């Protein structure tokens, strides 16, 4: 008989397919795990709806559950109850250590372009003398910034 803790531990071994330094559990996208006998129901939310890694993540979670000898039922939740605020403290530190600036906290009011343009901390040198190069980046969840102090471009997780 599998336990919820075993399922969480197994899911914590799955790296994010696009930012492999962070696991799906650190990313906070696994919303719930329910064990009922040999049936395991997992709810998760994609960071962005157009995330091309959706199927990969769903299959990876199902495989982990099967490896524990249980039957998976992985459901995709597409509401607004997940935000980048759910990324764990450990997850934010892993992002920073690999050159991704973690997302800013979600505020009640939507951010303006002016707010997004300046002041974010460079994950390489720690300077806040940085500018926004592009709201968009190599995946939907990232923006591209540039550090004027160490002259290093870097990516930042968008706030969602």
């Amino acid at each position, binding site marked *: 008989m599998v336990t919820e803790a075993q399922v969480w531990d197994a899911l914590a071994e799955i790296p994010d397919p696009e930012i492999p330094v962070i696991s799906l559990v650190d990313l906070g996208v696994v919303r719930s795990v329910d064990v009922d006998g040999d049936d395991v129901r997992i709810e998760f939310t994609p960071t962005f709806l157009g995330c091309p890694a959706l199927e990969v993540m769903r299959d990876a979670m199902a495989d982990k559950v099967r490896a524990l000898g249980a039957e998976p039922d992985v459901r995709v939740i597409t509401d*607004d*109850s997940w935000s980048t605020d759910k990324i764990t403290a450990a997850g934010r530190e892993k992002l920073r250590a690999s050159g991704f600036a973690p997302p800013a906290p979600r505020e009640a009011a939507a951010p303006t*372009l002016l707010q997004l343009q300046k002041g974010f901390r460079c994950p390489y040198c720690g300077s806040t003398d940085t500018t926004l190069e*592009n709201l*968009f980046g190599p995946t*939907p969840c990232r923006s591209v910034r540039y550090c004027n102090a160490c002259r290093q471009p870097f990516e930042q997780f968008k706030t969602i």
Partner: protein
Amino acid sequence: MSRVNVQALLRIADDELILGWRDSEWTGIAPSLEEDVAFSSIAQNEIGHARALYELCARELGTTADELAFDRSPDEYECAPLVELRRLDWAHTIARHWLYEEADELRLAALKESDNAEVAGLAAKMDREELYHRLHARMWAERLRGDERFESAVTELYPYALGVLDGDLRAAYSSRVGLSGSEPQTHERGSHSPELASLWEEMTSVRRSVPGATW
């Protein structure tokens, strides 16, 4: 909980799919690398929204998202004529982008108030992502404001943009985009340009090459 209004959601899904496809046509040929990245990313988001909406509709209709996206004939799509237009120059591209995103925000605000919790929740998530599209569109609209080519593109595409919205949202939209004085002949949904048929040919060509295959 009230039932899902499938027809209303399909209209939005078709808009997002076709516009996403059009936006992706800038991949590799945008006027700057940054805009290449931006339009490619926006395209991916729009198609992601279409997928989520199609999945909701597919469950109600007993079909699949892929069948809704690719297995209908071109005249069965419900997209607005605005999103069908192809090979636009940069002024028209930005004019359409800005006009569409301003309309989409109004439409999503209404959808977020839906009695159906699943629909309202999805609309709220979509809106979080669309915020970045709006910031991008408004940045460009501000930059090009007063430019003759851009202003004439806005005037030309405004009657198409009105066709994106249901009648009850149009007055608010007109004042939002600063064009409430004019009352042009709106390009309504329901008729399609030949440009949609050629897009459809390309978009569905791989899927039609091996019907019923699992990809």
